[in-house]
């Protein structure tokens, strides 16, 4: 650890080897890291496997914002959250996996809410195109009549 580093800073290393210097208060928003810090097995660099630099940077950005704006109005934070999670599906999936794996509750909640918004009010056909990439096998095996029944309005 370099000597210029303050005591309350932690180094996080992503799966592809990039290192991030993060204040401890921000890093411990991840319960997994918090446990490591509390158990004092985080003396040096903390490896964050399964999370690449790109995604880790996003998670850190989110945690920083939430740490700073604790005193601010909840409505401001909400706008930030909804803008933050508005990303492509690949990034969304990686973020959810990262948030789940590192146990960052606020981020996970915001992400789940976003996926729910994406599904809300859409027809089965639409969701299938959006999320399942239209797998031929599924279409052939799924019951056509059953689909129509579920897509109609219930009276």
């Amino acid at each position, binding site marked *: 650890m370099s000597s210029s580093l303050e005591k309350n800073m932690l180094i996080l290393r992503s799966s592809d080897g990039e290192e991030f210097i993060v204040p401890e208060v921000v890093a411990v928003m991840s319960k997994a890291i918090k446990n490591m810090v509390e158990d004092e097995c985080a003396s040096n660099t903390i490896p964050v496997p399964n999370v690449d630099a790109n995604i880790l940077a996003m998670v850190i950005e989110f945690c920083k914002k939430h740490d700073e704006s604790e*005193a*601010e*109005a*909840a*409505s*401001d934070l*909400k*706008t930030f959250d909804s803008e933050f999670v508005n990303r492509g*599906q*690949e990034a969304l*999936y990686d973020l*959810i*996996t990262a948030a*789940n794996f590192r146990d960052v509750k606020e981020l*996970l909640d915001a992400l*789940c*809410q976003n*996926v*729910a918004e994406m*599904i*809300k*009010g*859409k*027809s*089965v056909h639409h*969701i*299938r195109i*959006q*999320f*399942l*990439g*239209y*797998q031929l096998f*599924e279409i052939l*095996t*799924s019951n056509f009549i*059953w*689909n129509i029944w*579920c*897509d109609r*309005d*219930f*009276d």
Partner: protein
Amino acid sequence: MVMRDRIPQLPDSIVHNILSLLPPKDAARTSILSKACHHLYSTSPFLAFEVGFKNPDYIITPNEYKKKLDLVDKCVQHHLLQNPNVHAFKMSISFPYTKSLATCLHNWVTIALARNIHELNLEVTSTTQFYILPKSVPIANTLKVVSLSYCKLQNNCLGKLPQLQKLSLHRVYIEEDNHFFENLDFHCPSIEDFKLSLCQGLNMLHLGSTLLRLKNVHLDAAFDLKSIVIKAPNIHRFSFCGRGFSSIQHNLSACTVLQTLELREALITDQTFQKLMTQLPSLEVLGLHSCSILNGIKISSQKLSRLVVHQCLGLSVTELDTPNLLSIHYAGYKMPFVFMNTPHLRNVDIEFWLQSLQLSNLDKLKNFLLQSSHSKDFKLVMFYHHNSKPIFIQKKLSDNLAPLYHLKDFNPIVYITSRTNADFTQYLCEVQSDSHIRALM
């Protein structure tokens, strides 16, 4: 084609979480996406149903009614019995009230409770009658969250719910309030959150000193409510909406740790308010919304950090002695603050009509704005009316308030804000849709 089927591959707990955030109908739809999705839906711990008619005026024949209810009954029972991890049962039904509906509801609740659910959410919207909760509720040991709408409680009590943390009653008929609150005091010791809205039959609200864990209390205009006595010592947040009905006696003297107080459409007089404030030494957030008979008040508090005043038309705050105030939000016709001691003010949103401000008070306004160390971040924006473009923007509100003098004749709306540009534009959109009021607190 790119394979995009990654969302269903997420861990089950996350997919279940997402499903629980969806309206019941949308969640049910996902079950036919694929076999994996069907499995995920049918094992979701959050069981939610929403049954009703699209057209509420539709007159249904008895035969149709029976057929439909049978179908619903079959489906609900199947899910309640087959789902291996059922954890929460949510039923929202808007059928005309009949005996057979009551029997079905009894059945469902009994099965659900027998499966040791943690959360029960029942909404029975029927115009004619209240649904009376079955006796099986009083023995539910695992229930943590109970939310009832349009129901009636048997024997006017909830019974023994040792784990209950969150209780929300909406349009529930409570006949003997003594009995109800006595029961709550002695048999629901873990309760943390209590929400009561538009309940009938309630005369007196009494939350006893045995409710040590109670933190949040939300009350929304019970029409017959006369007095509120809260002795629970650890309440952090109390929010009250009076809906302009008769004034109510508040007694919050036991709530010495109260941090957030919100009063909405409450007929509260100056004296009562002053007395209330002296009882609450730990108050950090104060919200006043449409308290129309408040006239001249003094707010003096060491700990207050956030103040929201919204549409209190007659109000003028003659003294605001709050050395630790960080954030202030005000929207109304006239500028109400006369004397302020707020050196740490950082977040400001003040909106008023310029003409209501006397020239002599302009200097006071200037003083108050400049005494804060963050005043260089404050912006001054003026509009002709809410939907027009800004006629004047001053980015840094230093000691120059001259534009206020020049534009006085136009009677613009004045905003003094600490927001950034993008943020402010969005805030204005919200103001115009007037939906932001609830989000502010």
